[in-house]
């Protein structure tokens, strides 16, 4: 031990040991950077599914799409889209509320967002039950359930994040300062991504 002290005894004994301090960007906090990088990877995942969808629809090119006799409930999906888009407004309201220090508004916004998201998921599952085809029926059935199911899984993850944010809100966490409500901001960014993705999925699968 003594010999080690002697060998280090050249003026650097009090210096920092271990790995160097992590670099922190002054432009973006690491939580927001993390969710943005995650979203970039998610865009690639969805891109792969969209590529499969367009391959089946354009390159394989069946005579009609959806193939006869399958039909998609466009009106129900349209209402579901409106529900999900409105949930983006409520999560934005929740964040604006906590920025102004309004805790009741934060709780209300998060609760409304959670309920709208759960309603969306429930309607989608109900739609699956009544569609009349399964993922095993033609490549159309496979890609339809894959694409909408992938999105549904993301809504489920978003609901989990919102649940944690809501629990924290009810326990008195979060504040008006930017670094004090990252626990709402990061799930909010993810929720907006899920919303944008659904608009694209809805347009691609149900409308075009």
């Amino acid at each position, binding site marked *: 031990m003594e010999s080690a002290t002697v060998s280090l005894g050249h003026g650097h004994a009090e210096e920092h040991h271990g790995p160097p301090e992590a670099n922190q960007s002054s432009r*973006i906090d690491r939580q927001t950077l993390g969710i943005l990088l995650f979203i970039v990877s998610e865009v690639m995942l969805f891109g792969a599914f969209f590529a499969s969808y367009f391959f089946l629809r354009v390159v394989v090119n069946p005579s009609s799409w959806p193939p006869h006799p399958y039909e998609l409930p466009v009106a129900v999906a349209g209402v579901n889209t409106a529900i999900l888009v409105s949930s*983006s407004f409520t999560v*934005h309201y929740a964040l604006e509320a906590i920025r102004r220090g309004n805790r009741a508004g934060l709780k209300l916004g998060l609760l409304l967002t959670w309920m709208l998201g759960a309603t969306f998921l429930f309607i989608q599952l109900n739609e699956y039950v009544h569609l009349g085809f399964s993922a095993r029926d033609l490549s159309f059935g496979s890609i339809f359930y894959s694409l909408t199911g992938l999105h549904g899984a993301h809504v489920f993850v978003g609901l989990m994040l919102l649940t944690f944010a809501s629990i924290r809100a009810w326990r008195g966490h979060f504040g008006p300062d930017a670094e004090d409500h990252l626990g709402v901001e990061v799930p*909010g960014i993810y929720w907006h991504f899920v919303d944008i993705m659904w*608009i694209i999925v*809805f347009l691609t699968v149900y*409308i075009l």
Partner: protein
Amino acid sequence: MKVSEEAVFRWVVIVAVAGASVIVLTLLTRPLVGALWGLVLVCWACVHAYRWIDRKRRES
């Protein structure tokens, strides 16, 4: 580069309005017209994103 929930929410509104325009055009005409309009919007978004990134790179 300022990235926040507010900025992403703005994109939700932009994508929702663009999506609504595609739906209206598809219902009024044919799905092919809606798809082409959607493609035009995607191209516009790509050009916009490229210019934005280029501008930010020059600023930094």
